[in-house]
């Protein structure tokens, strides 16, 4: 989706606001939103890509003005509604009115969340698929403009880059954010010159590196 979240490369967004000695959380509700999101994700109720997509559906004027964890709150409420685990009436009243909705789900235990916080949980997919590209290959990023979730940002589309390295096989976010079907494929780090992305005024030496799935690229002719 060509949403406001895809903001890389936009000008005039505003000055940096750098807070000295910033706390991890500014208010109590922020830590709750963070913890509730983490806990429901750890319970396997949804995939990270799904919640990222919901955040992308926040109307642009709200996206630019919400506090960071307000975006998370919006997405978590919407996720629980979409998954039919909580009703609108329950959210408005704060009272359990439909206990039967959540009976099929088990909360993530303290042991489970502790494990996830301290152990390597590779999200590699263990399937045997040949990579489409190898280090050194010249590629062109596809010009796609899907209405669904994607991790191919606009500033990269149609641009020419070079494969730097291969990371491994992951699930394509474009389908994983929407309940499948699973599309496991290779992910590569790809190098783009600043001039390819932004024109001849960009510094000659500079580059942007980004991680791209097989489906996001074509081989580029020389």
């Amino acid at each position, binding site marked *: 989706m060509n949403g406001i979240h895809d903001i890389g490369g936009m000008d005039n967004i505003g000055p940096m606001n750098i807070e000295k000695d910033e706390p991890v959380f500014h208010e109590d509700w922020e830590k709750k939103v963070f913890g509730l999101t983490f806990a429901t994700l750890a319970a396997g109720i949804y995939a990270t890509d799904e919640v990222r997509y919901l955040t992308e559906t926040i109307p642009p004027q709200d996206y630019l003005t919400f506090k960071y964890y*307000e975006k998370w709150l919006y997405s978590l409420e919407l996720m629980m509604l979409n998954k039919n685990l909580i009703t609108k009436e329950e959210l408005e009243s704060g009272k359990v009115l439909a206990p039967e909705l959540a009976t099929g789900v*088990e909360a993530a235990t303290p042991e489970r969340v502790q494990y996830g916080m301290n152990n390597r949980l590779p999200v590699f997919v263990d399937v045997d698929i040949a990579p489409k590209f190898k280090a050194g290959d010249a590629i062109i990023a596809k010009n796609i403009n899907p209405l669904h979730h994607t991790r191919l940002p606009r500033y990269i589309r149609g641009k020419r880059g070079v494969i730097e390295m291969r990371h491994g096989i992951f699930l394509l976010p474009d389908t994983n954010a929407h309940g499948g079907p699973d599309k496991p494929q290779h992910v590569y780090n790809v190098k783009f010159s600043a001039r390819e992305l932004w024109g001849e005024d960009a510094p000659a030496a500079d580059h942007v590196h980004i991680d791209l799935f097989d489906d996001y690229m074509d081989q580029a002719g020389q």
Partner: protein
Amino acid sequence: MTESNHRAPLSDVQLRVKALESLLIEKGLVNQQALDAIIDNYENKVGPHIGAKVVARAWTDPDFKATLLEDASAALAEMEYTGIEGSHMVVKENTDKIHNLVVCTLCSCYPWPVLGLPPNWYKSTPFRAKAVRDPRGLLREFGLELSTDTEVRVWDSNAEIRYLVLPKRPAGAEGMSEEELSKIVTRDAMVGTGLIALQ
């Protein structure tokens, strides 16, 4: 904040969070102890002090540095500095000729196990918009002026791989121990928005 003129002790957002929290717990979708453990971990346990230890070790142990740059996921897992949002790691070294900067233009991806949760500026739209478009101008806002013959490499962490910058060891730090070095490594230097200087 509420616009009505009755005395509301809690803001709209606070009320929504309270409602959501009690619903998720009462419905058995979230375990209270698990929730407390998550908050405690990210508020009190993980943070840039962990990444600083990794950097200090890399500065003093050439074999570790080589492993870290070759396969950061394995090197960090071996030190038990791993977990969600840090299972697939890549570490990039700053040199006299190369300056690395990490961003997530699409959301706020960040290497939690080694840096903790990101600061607001990292998650903000100005940072995300400018990092890939004008990194040198952005770095000036952090007080960094890079020479034109330094190559700026921006790492947009848009997939599941998380990036950490291995900063340059400052001049004058030759005699310092690993522990002393870990005290001078800053979060900003490990994101690429800062350099390390001795006081």
